[in-house]
């Protein structure tokens, strides 16, 4: 299923929580949704999950508009909010069974589905536990299981890893990979960018309601900056190397990082090879000269300003 968000706007009075956001992703893809607190991630996700109506624009699930036909769109979306609402006097199994009933599953099929999502989210041992007695991590699993009950082709997960211990996070990552392999289109927001980068096929970076970068991970990382980050180490100390590098016109920035010098170099391959040749010609005994790839964290820090509305 293809998910297309087109010129989405959501204003609260003068505050533009979401301002002209557009991006798209498809089945089998995990798409990261990244931004500082208050950037508009949850609002966008709520609109996509039909919980809120946009001020303008629309979101389409294979041609089904979440604005015009929210009831139909809901069948295709599994939404996992950042916190599981508290319900009294209901067990995990009953809770999932209720949702299965709510989505119209009947009889043996319902029992089968509930058992399978319990198994998938590793909840079999918790079936008879009351919902309010669960820890944060367990609740997140229940929430994920709940979002999967009706086998939706699109999953919208708002901070699913928040509050999880390292083991649970790794398990969640694996679960998401399995779900993507099964053809689900997954939009996931998280502040743990290193983990997102490991599983995402693409990402959207948003700040103050506006999209700063969107596309596949490769596009985002490669097309980010005209500067290259080069790490240089020379035998005989880093200080003379740093002084020499700072005199080069193509070097925009240079700093010491232990025994190494990290520079921001302007220009392409020509400038890079030219710099290496220049250093060797100047008599520096170069031990290491490598280009460091930007990761999602670098891109995020470069493009965002940490501003909230």
């Amino acid at each position, binding site marked *: 299923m293809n998910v297309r968000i087109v010129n989405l706007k959501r204003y609260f*009075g003068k505050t533009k929580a979401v301002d002209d956001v557009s991006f798209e992703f498809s089945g089998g893809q995990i798409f990261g949704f990244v931004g500082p607190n208050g950037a508009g991630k949850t609002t966008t996700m709520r609109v996509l999950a*039909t919980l809120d109506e946009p001020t303008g624009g629309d979101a389409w699930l294979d041609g089904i508009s979440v604005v*015009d036909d929210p009831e139909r769109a*809901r069948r295709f979306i599994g939404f996992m909010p950042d916190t599981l*609402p508290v*319900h*009294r*006097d209901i067990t995990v199994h009953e809770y999932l069974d*209720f949702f299965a009933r709510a989505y119209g599953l009947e009889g043996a099929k319902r029992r089968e589905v509930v058992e399978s999502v319990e198994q998938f989210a590793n909840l079999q041992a918790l079936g008879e536990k009351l919902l309010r007695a669960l820890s944060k991590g367990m609740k997140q699993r229940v929430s994920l299981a709940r979002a999967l009950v009706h086998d939706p082709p699109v999953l919208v997960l708002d901070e699913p890893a928040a509050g999880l211990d390292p083991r649970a996070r790794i398990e969640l990552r694996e679960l998401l990979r399995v779900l993507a392999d099964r053809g689900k289109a997954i939009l996931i927001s998280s502040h743990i960018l290193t983990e997102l980068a490991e599983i995402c096929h693409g990402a959207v970076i948003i700040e103050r309601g506006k999209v700063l970068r969107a596309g596949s991970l490769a596009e985002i990382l490669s097309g980010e900056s005209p500067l290259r980050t080069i790490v240089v180490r020379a035998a005989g100390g880093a200080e003379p190397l740093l002084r020499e590098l700072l005199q080069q016109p193509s070097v925009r920035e240079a700093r010491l990082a232990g025994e190494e010098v990290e520079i921001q170099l302007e220009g392409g391959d020509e400038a890079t090879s030219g710099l290496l040749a220049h250093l060797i010609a100047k008599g520096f005994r170069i031990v290491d000269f490598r280009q460091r790839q930007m990761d999602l964290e670098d891109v995020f820090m470069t493009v965002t300003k940490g501003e909230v509305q």
Partner: protein
Amino acid sequence: MSRFLAWASAAGQRVNPIVVKEFRQAVRSRFVVVVFLLFLLVDLLMLGGFLLLSPDLATDARSGQGVFAALFAVLLFTCMGFVPLYAGIRLSLERNDTNIDLFFITTITPGAIVRGKYFTALALTLLIFSACMPLLVFTYLLRGIDLPTIFFLLAMAFLVCAAGNAIGLFVGSLPGGWFLRGLVAALALLFLLYGTIGTFAFVMEEVLMFGRFRLTWDWDFWAVLGTVVLLALLGIGLLQVLSAAMLSPKPANRMLVPRIYTTVCWAAAGLVIAAWCWHEGTAGPFIPWLIFGTILFSGFAVMALGERDAWTQRVRKRIPRNALLRLPAFLFYTGSAGGLAWSTLMFAATLGACYARAEGGSRILPGNLTSECGNAAVCFGYVLCYCLTAACFRSFFLKKLPTLYLPIIAMLLIVAATLVPYLVAFLLMDQASWRSDSYWYLLGSPAILTIGRDDAAAAAGPFVLVWLTLSAAGSLPWWVDQWRRFVPLNRD
């Protein structure tokens, strides 16, 4: 047998999911269990105490009646106090905007949610009734009350409790902050208390003590009972439709169904009453219809103020492009100005029907009906004045205030217009003048009609008319703005 079991199993699969969930939660709820056990304990203690301690049990031929009344009171107060409260609070907690999963994620419709919750509340009521039933039937053996009366009163009590449950759910479904909901809940509690005491007093006085409303095969008895039951069922239906509207997502066209439902029911009730009047040769039955209509449409008018004054894409997509169809759509769709106009038109239609009947020459009550029409018009006129004045405030001073608070402003105006002139008069006038024939300080509210003076009632009409004209003129920008905004979505 196996076919029946298969059918029962298949039916069980199709039960409203909300009912299954609510029952599971009720069974686990300590609160429900404690109330139920406490109720049984009180009933048993009362009956046991009476049997053991009553000195004239063997000789008193009416002792069963006394015990029945006591047990009936406990039953009524328990069901009216506990079940609507339990159902309302549970719904209120689950309809919270942060608690989205039950109502907004799944494909269950708001109507199914309300029906599920209501069915569960009825089942809880039935459980309490059935637990109490053997004890109530036992009072037949103590003499003074017959079995048909016992079952008739239980059926009536169940109807009252069913209405109470619908009120509880309606209050629980209301949006807004805790203050607003708490205020409405407090009013609803007072109403439930009044209903409980009123029902009990009616049973004691009209059925048990004087027997004026005893179960008979008389046409008058069944006509009155049938009308009351029909109106109660229509009222329960209206509350359910309104509750479902309140649970619908904010961008939805929430008030369309309640307005259509009310219009249809009101027209049907009007036709039944007209037929009844024709059969009886009196315009009398129109009076309760008129009074009930005045209260209902006054409530709708105040509620309408809290509706949205700008439309979402979802609603605008369904606004007719034809200008002729747009006008009825404006009246029936969610929207404060349209809602106020619809309430006014519905009241005007009610008034017109009653007035036409009165002028048409009823044999018994034409004069009274004309006077009732005048009073109803003045009362609704006052409500309209408060609403339009609130709309004026909105247009000129409170543009940023959410429309949800406009009904509160209208209600504050009612309180202010009633109390302030009265207090001013009380403080300014000396004792002699206070006892004089002045009534100007009552002109701000419909209370002027209650002092029983013709000149005061006659002054109220022109006063309301002037106020109405001024507030309608003042609120003109409010009407025009909303009509201009009520346009179909331009997809281009």
